[in-house]
Every structure is written in C-alpha cells, then in structure tokens.
C-alpha cells in the first residue's frame, strides 16, 4: 500500500491489489453472505414453505391425483415423474433468488454492503451459493418422499448422484437468471410476479409430468430441447437407464450457456442499479 492514512484504523485486511489476496477475500465474503442468506431462509416461514412443503405437495398431487390418467410407456408413473419433480422444484425454488435480491435492494441492506470494503461479487455469489444449499435440502426431502410413494431408481447410487448433480448444475445456472430479474425489479412483489410467467412454460411445456409424445406436434420441438426438458431427460437416463451421454452433454451445455450469458448480465445489473 502506498498511501498513508491520516488516522489509525483497525480494519483488518490490508488493501492489497494482489489478485490472490483479493480472490481469497472474495471467497471469505461469499461464505459470510451465504451464511447470512441461509440463516435468513430458516427465519422466513414463506421461504421455508417453498423449499420444503410445496415440493412434497407436488409429489403427492401428481402421483395420486393426475398420475392415474397419464400413460408412461416402459416405466411406472412415479419413476417417470420423480426426475421431473426434482427439476420442477429447483426451478420454482429459484424464484427465491429474485425475491431475496429484490428485498435486499428494497430494504437497503445492499446499500450497506456497497459501503463496506467487501468483494462486490460476494452479494451475488453468496446469494446463488445459498440457493444451491437450499436446493440440496429440497432434493433430499423430495428424494425421501419419492421413495415413500414408490420411486425405485434402477441404475445404482453413483448414477443417481450424477443425476442430482445435473439438476444442481441447472439450478445454479437458473439462479443467475433470477438474480437478473431480482436486480431489475422495483420490489420483491414485482420480482415474484415477473418470475412465474417465465417459469411456467419452461416447467409445464416440458417432459416433467407428461411425455412429450402426447403433446401437440407444434409444441414437441420446444418441449424436447428446452433446458428444463433436457435436464430432466439427462436425470431420467441417469436414474432409470436408457441413452445417457446425449442428454447429459446437452444439459451440461445448456447450463454452461446460461451461465456464460447470465453471470455477466447479473453483474452488470448489480453494477448499474443505483
């Protein structure tokens, strides 16, 4: 450091421009913000509800109410459904990213963060990392409920975990998209309202609940290759067998493309939002 400070300070870290030091502090700050966000989730009943009770309701609803009338060739409906439910719950859960960021902006906590000597990136990385943690919890809950209602994966533990990994990767990429929405919305209500029209076609015009072959012809192309369906197909292949490589590669590509586009966009929105 070359500048002298006119008064003593105990601010711990020396202000180094060293890349390694800055990267280390960025990670420390990300962890601090992540912990704060996780703590917040446990204290907001709505957020907890979205991450725990709602996914369970969806499993029960589709298995017992709609399941009987949907025909899935080659496997039971529960087996067909569960990969879809996984992706659907993490997709719906990512709305929490936009709501959380919009709320932080609205309530002025981000103003305080901006005046602190922390890594700027940590507000966003800490948010998306906390959402990743929340998604892991959701997936564990859904897995348990799935097994209770008769879900029986056929490929083995490692393949099952690989399927979960594919979902988490997609969920993480999606979080950045909803971060963009949260940073663009004037308040958390608008963030929520804007998020659902984006999610609904992705989640419901997908192979999550109904085989694409049972949809009208004009919808099948979109419903097969859009990211939610591709991720579900990869997950299904990993958990239930069938051609795997094609779908896994496509789902990794989708996640990579989304991240490459959405991360810079979110960072830009964060920088320019006054």
């Amino acid at each position, binding site marked *: *450091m070359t*500048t002298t*400070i*006119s*008064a*003593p*300070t*105990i*601010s*711990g*870290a020396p*202000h180094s421009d060293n890349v390694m030091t800055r990267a280390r*502090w960025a990670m*420390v*700050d990300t962890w*601090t*913000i992540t912990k*704060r966000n996780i*703590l*917040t989730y446990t*204290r*907001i009943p709505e957020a907890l509800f979205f991450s725990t009770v709602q996914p369970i309701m969806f499993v029960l609803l589709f298995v017992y109410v709609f399941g009987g009338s949907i025909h899935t060739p080659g496997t039971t409906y529960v087996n067909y459904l569960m990969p879809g439910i996984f992706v659907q719950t993490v997709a719906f859960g990512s709305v929490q990213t936009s709501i959380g960021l919009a709320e932080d*902006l*609205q*309530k*002025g*906590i981000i*103003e*305080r*963060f*901006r*005046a*602190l*000597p*922390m890594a700027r990136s*940590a507000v966003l990385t800490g948010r998306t990392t906390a959402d990743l943690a929340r998604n892991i919890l959701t997936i564990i809950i859904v897995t348990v409920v799935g097994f209770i209602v008769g879900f029986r994966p056929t490929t083995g533990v490692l393949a099952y975990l690989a399927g979960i990994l594919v979902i988490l990767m997609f969920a993480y990429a999606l979080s950045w998209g909803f971060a963009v929405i949260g940073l663009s919305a*004037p308040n958390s209500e608008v963030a929520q309202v804007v998020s659902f029209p984006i999610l609904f076609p992705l989640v419901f015009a997908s192979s999550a609940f109904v085989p694409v072959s049972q949809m009208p012809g004009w919808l099948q192309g979109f419903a097969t290759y859009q990211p939610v369906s591709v991720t579900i197909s990869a997950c299904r292949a990993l958990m239930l067998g069938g051609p795997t490589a094609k779908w896994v590669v496509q789902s990794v590509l989708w996640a990579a493309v989304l991240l490459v586009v959405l991360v810079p966009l979110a960072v830009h929105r964060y920088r320019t939002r*006054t």
Partner: protein
Amino acid sequence: MQYSIEADTLKKTFTGKHEVRALDGVSFGVAEGTVFGLLGPNGSGKTTAVRVLTTILRADSGTARVLGHDVERRANLVRSLIGLAGQYAAVDENLTGRENLEMVGRLNHLGRSQVTGRAKDLLEQFDLADAGDRILKTYSGGMRRRLDLAAALVARPTVLFLDEPTTGLDPQSRNDLWEVIESLVGGGTTVLLTTQYLEEADRLADTLVVLDHGRVIAEGTPEALKADLGATVLEVGLESLEEARRSAVLFDALGTHTPVVNGTVVEVTVDNGPESAMLGLRSLDQEGIIPSAFTLREPSLDDVFLALTGRRTENETPSTEDETAQKRRRGRRRRAGQAMPIATGELQ
C-alpha cells in the same frame, strides 16, 4: 486546514421518467474531528451526496475525497475507513443484533476474535446487550437505529456518515441517539450528518450547509445561520385577513426579515423573543387588534428556507432523488409523521 471530507463541484443527474438534477455542483469541506450538517428538505440532494461520498454512487462529474483518498479511484480503501448509518443503509431484520454486527465485522475483514469482541462491546455500549440475541423484527424503532449506528462503528471508522439518523424516532429516542453521537465526536471521529431538522443540526453540527435542489444555498455555523435568520419566530393568529395585513405592517419594525402573512397568521423572526413579543402585543393593543393565538417558537428549517429562498420547503414535489429511494422514504415518512410532533410540526 486538514479536511477529512471534501466535495468539489459534485454533479449527479438521475435519468428516467423525470430527469432529476440531484446534485448541481455541490462543494464543501469537513474539518477533521468536527460534525458537519447537511440540512435540507426531502429531495434536496442530501442522500445523493452521502451516497457519492460513501462510494455507493458515482457522480457524473466533480471529485470527492475522504481522508485525502478519491472515492472513485480508491473506493475500497475509502470503504475501510468510513462507517455509514442511516435510513437506507439498513440492518438485516431476519438476523439478531449480534449476528448483524458480526456479519459487518467479517465483511470488514476483521480477525475472528475482533469480530465477536466488537459485537459484544458495541451491544453493551448501545444498551442492547439484553436484546443482542433477539431477531431484529422484535426491536423498537429506537433500538434498530442504535444497532444501525453500532453497525457503522464496528471497524472503528475515523469518518462517519449518518443519513438522517433520527428521522422517524420519538423525542426520547432522538435525545438518546444525540447523546451517543455527541460522545462519538468527543472521541475524535469526524461526522457528516444529514437532517431535515434545524434543531438537530443546531445541537450537533459545528458547521453546516443548507441544500436546495442540489445546490448549496447557505453555509456557516448554526449560530451564524440563526443569527442571520433571527433567533425566535413570533407567530400571531388573527381573526381576519384584514387584521393580519395590518398586523404585518406593525411587526415590520420588530423583525429581522419582512413578516410573512399566511392566511390569518402572521410570522416574523425576531432577535429578542420576549422583548419583541411585548412590543408586538403593545402595538396590537394600540390598534385595537386582539390576536386569537400568540406563540414564540424556535425557527424551523421551514423558516430558514423562507428566509433564504422566499418560499417554503416543498417536501413531496419534484423529487431530486432516484425513485426507489424516494418510495422507501415515503413509507417511512408516513410513519414518522405521527411520532415526530416536535420538529415536523412546521414541515408540511
């Protein structure tokens, strides 16, 4: 002179639905170890000035320095030297008081033992030790503001920015907070505070500037400003408009400024309250005018504005702040209005 905070012709225009010139060439300097007040009504540019000085917002042009460091080029260094508290820099209402302070400590990159130590000390210092492990949702307004101030002090900043630190507080909590701020200044901290209340600026600030529409319209010590204005306001209510007009002519000789007629109420600022009151009543008596109300009061920001600009403060009209900030502020103001009879009485 050694300035801890310097602003040099800062300009900031917000574009959007309405183009708003929030800062229109604002310059001032704050001497080390003093309290500096930015006084002005809503939308005068106070908060924008604080946001530029605390590195949150970039000015369109002009320069700002804190302890000699440019706030744009050395932003991270500046952030490690300052503390910010106030109406926008919020605390997290889903965390406990202690968790809030510890989070700020960690984000200031303090060592582990310092983080917990500072949180504990500050909770005690701000009379929040018992409430330290309660979630903020259960805190009163005054407790929140104290925690907010404590959060700004975690890294022992040498320069402190307080954006309307007491807006929305009841008189008792305000007084408590004033005492805390005064003790900080005794410890050598340089403080910049924004306020809408002349009373607050008078009590806390060594020097102040008055902002209006993003421009500095007056600067000096509170004493000089008040002396310039007149120490007391004589407010007389009358039965008719005609009597008000006649009274204004009588009071012209008493006041430091021309009396202002507002309906049937005449206001005049005077140097010597009791004496002027006596003279005023006597002259009314001679004319056979009997007032319906007669009050002596401290001058308010509104009076300062009236004296400086010839018009009253326009609180809710054309904003000079970005819209989200303003919306936030409106919500608070509404709540604040009920709890603040003392100083807001004069601010419509």
